[in-house]
C-alpha cells in the first residue's frame, strides 16, 4: 500500500516537471512533436529505473555517514557524503553508456527510434535530480527507491507527451509574434503546472 501511495505521489504530486522543473532543457527542446517526445520519455523512464536503485545502494553502503561500517568498526565513523555528486554523475554517465550499447546490440529498432536522446540523457537534470531527491527522502529500502524511480519517470513521460500534443495543435493558432515558439510554450507549461497543482495533498 505504501508503494502504491508513493507511486501515485511521485507521478502527480511530486511531478518532476511541474513541481521541481527538472529536465526542463530537454523538455522544452524535444517537445515539438509527439513521436520524438514519446522516445525521449521512454528513455528517461528506462534510465531512471536503472540508475536510481544503483545510486540508492551506493548511497546506503558507501556514501552515507556510517555506511561503511560493514567493512569493520574502524570505518563506522567515515562520512563520504560530500562525494555523492561526483559518484552519482559518474554512475549515471556510465549506465547511460552501457544502456546505449545494450539497446543498440539487442533492440536495434528501439535504438533507432531513441536515436540521439539516449546519450543526451546523461546530462538530463531529471536523472541526477531523482538520485539527489532519493538521498534527501531517505527511503528505507531499495524497493521504495525503485518505485519512486518508476513513478517519477512516468510523471516526466506524461508531462512531455502532453506538452508535445499541445504544441502540435498550437502551431495552427495565431500567437502574437514576440511570443511565438518559446514564449507561448513557457506560458503553456506554467498553466499546465497550475492544473497539476490540483493533485496536491492526495493521500491513498
Amino acid at each position, binding site marked *: 500500500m505504501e508503494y502504491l501511495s508513493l507511486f501515485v505521489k511521485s507521478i502527480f504530486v511530486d511531478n518532476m516537471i511541474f513541481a521541481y522543473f527538472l529536465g526542463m532543457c530537454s523538455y522544452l527542446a524535444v517537445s515539438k512533436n509527439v513521436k520524438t517526445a514519446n522516445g525521449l520519455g521512454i528513455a528517461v523512464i528506462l534510465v531512471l529505473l536503472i540508475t536510481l536503485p544503483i545510486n540508492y545502494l551506493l548511497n546506503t553502503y558507501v556514501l552515507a555517514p556510517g555506511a561503511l561500517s560493514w567493512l569493520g568498526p574502524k570505518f563506522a565513523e567515515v562520512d563520504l557524503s*560530500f562525494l555523492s*555528486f*561526483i559518484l552519482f554523475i559518474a554512475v549515471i554517465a556510465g549506465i547511460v553508456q552501457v544502456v546505449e550499447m545494450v539497446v543498440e546490440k539487442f533492440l536495434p529498432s528501439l535504438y533507432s527510434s531513441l536515436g540521439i536522446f539516449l546519450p543526451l540523457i546523461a546530462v538530463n537534470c531529471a536523472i541526477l535530480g531523482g538520485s539527489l531527491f532519493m538521498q534527501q527522502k531517505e527511503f528505507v529500502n531499495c524497493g521504495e527507491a525503485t518505485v519512486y524511480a518508476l513513478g517519477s519517470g512516468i510523471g516526466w513521460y506524461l508531462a512531455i507527451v502532453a506538452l508535445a500534443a499541445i504544441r502540435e495543435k498550437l502551431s495552427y493558432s495565431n500567437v502574437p509574434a514576440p511570443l511565438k515558439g518559446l514564449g507561448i510554450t*513557457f506560458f503553456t507549461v506554467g498553466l499546465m503546472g497550475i492544473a497539476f497543482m490540483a493533485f496536491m495533498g492526495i493521500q491513498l
Partner: protein
Amino acid sequence: MDAKLKETILNPIFKGNPISVLVLGICSSLAVTVELKGACVMALSVIIVTGLSSLVCSLIRKTIPNRVRIVIQLTVVAMMVILVDQVLKAFAYGIDKQLSVYIGLIITNCIVMGRIEAFALGNKPIPSLLDGLMNGVGYGMILVIVGFFRELLGSGTLFGFPVLKAIGYTNNGLVILPPMALIFLGCIIWVQRSIQKDLQEK
C-alpha cells in the same frame, strides 16, 4: 581582438542570454526564485562554477581525448560544484538547506556543459574564463529579476524586509507557487523579443 573580447563579454547578457535566448539551464533556475536571497546565492554559485570549469577545461583542452570528453567535463564540473556546496554548507547552512538539491543540479545545468563544449574547448583560458563568467552573469540576471518580482508580489518583501506592507498590499499567494516562475519567464521573453525583433520565431 578587442572587439571580439568585448563581444564575448556583452553577448551573453542580452543578445545571447543563456536562459531567454538559448533556453539552457532552466531546470535548476526556476525553483530557487521564490525569494530574492535564494536567487542571488544560486546566481553567484552558477557564476563561479561556469567561470572556473570553463577555465579548467580550457587549460586541459589539448590533453582531453575527444571520445571521453563528456565524462571529463562532467568530472571537472562536479568538482567545482562540490567545492561551492561545501563552502555554502560551512558558511551559509540555512541557505544550503533551502536550495536543497538544486546546488547539486548545477552539474547538469546545460549552461555549464554548453559553454565548455561550445567555447572553452576551442579557446584560450582567459577568454574562456570571461565567457563562462559572463554566461553565469546572464543567467543570474534573469534569476534575480524573476526572484525580485516573485518575492515582491508574493510576500511583499525584499530580502526578507517588508516593503509593500506600508501601502496596504495584500500578498498574492499564486506568485509563490512554482508554475508562476514559468509565466514570469514567459513575460521576460515576451518583453525581450518585442524589443529585439530578430529573435522572433517564424
